[in-house]
């Protein structure tokens, strides 16, 4: 059963552990992707997810319900990830572009049945995307995840990243432009 965010928050505030578990299940992959967008490293993104839920558990009593739960959680995620990124900045340069972890057989690439030649093309495109995304700045990667994966509005992205809406618009434009440059042969 899917619970509303409001219901989950009310239950967590009275120490309902099942509600907290539900919240973790609902948001863990979304949080992971934002953290991954910033950090570009699966292990660190995994650590960031845990850190985010620890903070959510600790501070949810102070959560003001005039804001939406997901923007509150995503703001925590963004801040935790940025902190971690700054701490580990030097380590990342050698890890970017590692496309060996991609599972080319993943069904998530497409909902329809794909032919072997299409599969090969998609594998190639995924590898190129992996590489191209790794070449972007942390700001551009993050904004692409928030927009393309989370489907957030510019206002929400502005709130989460504490940047003006005009900056969000400009960053998205440049992120897509840069990505296109890397992928010109494939898109």
């Amino acid at each position: 059963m899917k619970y509303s965010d409001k219901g989950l928050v009310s239950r967590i505030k009275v120490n309902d552990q099942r509600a907290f578990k539900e919240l973790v299940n609902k948001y863990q992959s979304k949080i992971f992707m934002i953290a991954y967008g910033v950090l570009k490293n699966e292990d660190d993104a995994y650590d960031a997810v845990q850190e985010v839920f620890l903070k959510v558990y600790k501070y949810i009593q102070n959560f003001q319900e005039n804001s939406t739960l997901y923007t509150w959680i995503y703001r925590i995620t963004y801040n935790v990830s940025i902190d971690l990124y700054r701490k580990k900045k030097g380590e990342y340069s050698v890890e970017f572009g590692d496309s060996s972890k991609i599972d080319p057989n993943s069904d998530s690439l497409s909902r329809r049945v794909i032919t072997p030649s299409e599969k090969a093309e998609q594998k190639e495109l995924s590898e190129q995307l992996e590489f191209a995304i790794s070449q972007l700045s942390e700001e551009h990667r993050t904004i692409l995840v928030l927009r393309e994966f989370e489907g957030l509005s510019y206002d929400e992205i502005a709130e989460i990243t504490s940047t003006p809406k005009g900056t969000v618009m400009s960053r998205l434009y440049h992120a897509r432009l840069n990505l296109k440059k890397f992928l010109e042969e494939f898109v």
Partner: protein
Amino acid sequence: MRCDIVKERLSAYMDGELPHNEMQEISLHLEGCESCAKEFESLETLSDSLNNYFEMVSKRVSLDSIYDNVMEKIEKEKIKPVFKDENEGWMMRFIKSLLQYSPTFASIAAILIIAFALLPNQHDNSKSSKGESVSVESLEYSKFNAMIYKTKEQNKTVIWLFKQENDDDEFDDSI
């Protein structure tokens, strides 16, 4: 609208984040401009590819143990939820935030808040909103300033002493 301007705005157009009139203008432009239409199409393809890619990444990592790990850490480190002090009013929060910035400034703010709260319309020997008669006097000396706040009915006196700026940035109060 010129093609270069349209191309710059296609990203926001695709996201539906432009004002209505610009959305209309670009939509019309795309109908009649092959070059911009082609650009827009490639942007949409990029967006689809990115979405598929992010979906794929989100599914290739198992997050099943996140909840157990978090609960284990909460128990191990004895992490407790932090409760905001509900009794703390906006005035106290305001003064606390000022205190971090400047104790002197905060103390002046505190005086002003008390004065405005208790003396809404008058300056001295007046009735407060609760019916209490109070008087406020301020005195200036060479090394410090003083403010004296007196209530007649309850016979209370509050004296605030402020050191001058060239002295230590601290203050004393006594009742």
